[in-house]
């Protein structure tokens, strides 16, 4: 008999709320009153969780993992799912920054939009966002030059700038558009975007792969056109091209690869003249 925990914000939260205790790891096997007495921060005030959220235990007959069902106006609620290693978190509406930071396992689903630093420094697990996500998806904390090292982030909407910054491994899928500098300083892993991107994708990458099915305004001068590819692998499934395949970033002696869908990028057709020469 597994318990589902329903956590509902009591009011509109304007001040920034740090709620890194809203994770299966922190709540597992605690009594209701114990959960309510876990501490969160509202601005510079330390508050028991129970003061800002209504907590309810629901017996659920499904035997799957501990699930936290988080509801209400959560735009300014941050660090939900921080360092999470198992279980599930389901979020009804929008949610704040650092959702699932340093995640090590389990699954998070957001029906609305997510803030910046979604899945920051993630090691494993799955994050699914039905809406949009902010900037720095999967990026590491400031100063670190190794980012997401595993796991999977799937954003059905669009994402902001520097998605997959310093990415080491793992998979990021964006059904919507990718902002500026997608895959910047990538060292491994894969980013797939079905929508369009802004410029400078793959800037500074040394390895890893960025696959774009939509339009790319331009390719950096430090990337070189290699060849045309029919399809490519993303995680354990294949995505059909055909693609222009670029390698770079030469400015970093990089071996990263950009796969740009030919159909949506006829402004790049001029590079085909390099095919005969090579």
């Amino acid at each position, binding site marked *: 008999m597994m318990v589902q925990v329903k956590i509902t914000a009591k009011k509109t939260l304007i001040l920034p709320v740090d709620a890194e205790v809203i994770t299966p790891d922190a709540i597992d096997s605690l009594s209701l009153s114990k959960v309510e007495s876990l501490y969160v921060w509202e601005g510079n005030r330390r508050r028991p969780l129970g003061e800002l959220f209504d907590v309810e235990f629901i017996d659920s007959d499904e035997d799957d993992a501990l699930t936290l069902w988080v509801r209400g106006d959560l735009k300014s609620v941050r660090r939900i799912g921080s360092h999470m290693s198992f279980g599930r978190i389901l979020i009804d509406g929008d949610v704040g920054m650092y959702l699932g930071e340093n995640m090590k396992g389990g699954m998070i689903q957001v029906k609305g939009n997510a803030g910046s630093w979604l899945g920051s420094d993630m090691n494993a697990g799955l994050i699914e966002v039905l809406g949009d996500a902010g900037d720095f998806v999967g990026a590491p904390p*400031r100063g670190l030059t190794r980012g997401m090292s595993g796991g999977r982030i799937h954003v059905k909407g669009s994402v902001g700038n520097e998605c997959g910054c310093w990415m080491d491994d793992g998979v990021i899928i964006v059904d919507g558009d990718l902002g500026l500098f997608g895959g910047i300083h990538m060292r491994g892993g894969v980013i797939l975007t079905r929508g369009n991107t802004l410029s400078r994708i793959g800037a500074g990458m040394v390895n890893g792969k960025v696959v774009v099915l939509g339009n790319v305004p331009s390719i950096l001068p430090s990337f070189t056109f290699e060849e045309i590819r029919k399809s490519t692998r993303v995680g354990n499934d294949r995505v059909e091209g055909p693609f222009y395949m670029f390698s770079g970033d030469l400015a970093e002696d990089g071996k990263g690869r950009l796969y740009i869908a030919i159909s949506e990028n006829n402004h790049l057709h001029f590079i085909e003249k390099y095919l005969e020469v090579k």
Partner: protein
Amino acid sequence: MDLLIINGVVYDPINSVNGERMDIAVHNGKIVGHVNDSEAKVIDASNMLIMSGGVDIHSHIAGPKVNAGRLLRPEDHVNDFEVKGPFIRSGVGGSVPSTFTTGYRYARMGYTTVMEPATPPIKTRHTHDELNDTPIIDKACYILFGNNWFVLEYLKDNRVEDCAEYVSWILDALKGYAVKVVNPGGVEAWGWGENVRGIDDVVPNFGITPREIIRGLCKVNTLLGLPHSVHLHTNNLGRPGNYQTTLDTMRCVEDLADVDPILHITHCQFSSFKGDDWTNLTSAAPEISDYVNKHSHVTLDMGQIIFTETTTMTADGPHEYMIHGISGNKWVNLDIEAETGGGVVPYTYKPKSYVNATQWTIGLELALMIDDPWKIMLSTDHPNAGPFVEYPSIMSWLISKYARQKSLEKVNKKTLRRSHLSDLDRELSLSELIVMTRCSPSKALGLDKKGHLGVGADADIAIFDIDPMRVDTSKEYLKYDRAFRRAAYTIKDGIVVARNGEITTRHTGKTLWIKSGFPQEAFGSLINELRERFERYYTIQLDNYPIDESCLTNSKPVFTQSSLWS
């Protein structure tokens, strides 16, 4: 408020007290013969080890280079922080802690005096700003002279006395405590991206060799009667085969020595490499320690490696660029007009790395193969070879063969085969360890009120919750390691400042500096002679260069005698 510490086991090597039960009385911040115990606050130190507060001769805790390291590495602080408390300001730790945290962490470990070993004259105002915000400990800073254009020009023309007058003015004007020399001539060459190879290489554009710079500044140091000898970071530091340069450096000043040591080779581990390249790097500890055992004009400090992630920072610009090349980590370079340079590069020492493991053995071999503990002081060149909070693990390695054995099991196999460390059985006694961490640094720095518990000494006392009579240093080193990390009591200027790891009061230590005995009008003529060249070499006005004593929150000038002006 008087203090009476009773029933403790006292170690005070300078006053030849080695593990005696005795009481210590404190009045007005000084150690006294006795106090009437009715008014005094009594501390029952039964079964506890008592020694004077720790003195760290070389630790980068304040100044432009250190702050560049803090700025460079937010990732170094994000998971190690201190929350604001009744007596403490909040801050961050990591390999380069913020200033408040630095003071508290030294105090918790029973250290009460720390020397910032490298500040460029033109930015020493910044260093003093930071030292003012470093609580509890007494402190001072050494001023960099080895690549200073005026020093190079004076010594090239062998004008030693003029150079002495200039050095004395700088120490007085910028509130410095000692003469620091880093890769003499090499950092000036780095102004063009070059370096010097050995001590007889000519420095481009200046026509002088490192040998002449070192000898010149040692003469200046003696002439001025400065309390500490010249504090030297050798040329070719961190380069395989550099032990030859270190031996040449120590030899080149033999004739200048009289009673006291004339030269201090700092973080000597980095200067004791044999071999042609990284693959056949081996320890030169035997050669270096043999020389030091046979001479009395040189003191050293270890620069012991700790297997951890840390931040290297030194005025040796070309050396830091080399570390950047090896590690590929982010690199900061800070060249300073007409004076020196600097660099900061994060670095991780790994036990499985042949080079790092060999470096680790070199530091310990030096300490164990140099017979006299007064000649080799404990240090990690914090944070270059490791953070100061790891000093207790070095203490364990020194006092216990078993501690060394346990760590040796984890190091690189090739290092294990080649190193002398595994067959060194020497285990330092508690007294010898105390000499290396309090007494010899105080003596080398000329701090006669520090490093001992005799009557008249500063009441800087560390009390550790371990009974040296019953706990064996060799086998039960882990207990000593734990005890040394958090003093039961740390007493500074007669006040209990830390208790079992908790800071118990707000306290600001003194900043020591050398007040020149030179008559002011003598400086007047020096300054007029300097003014024209200063305007050409620098981009600030000469009159904005000195620092007013009021800029030091707790100024403690130290007076010296010199033949030049008496």
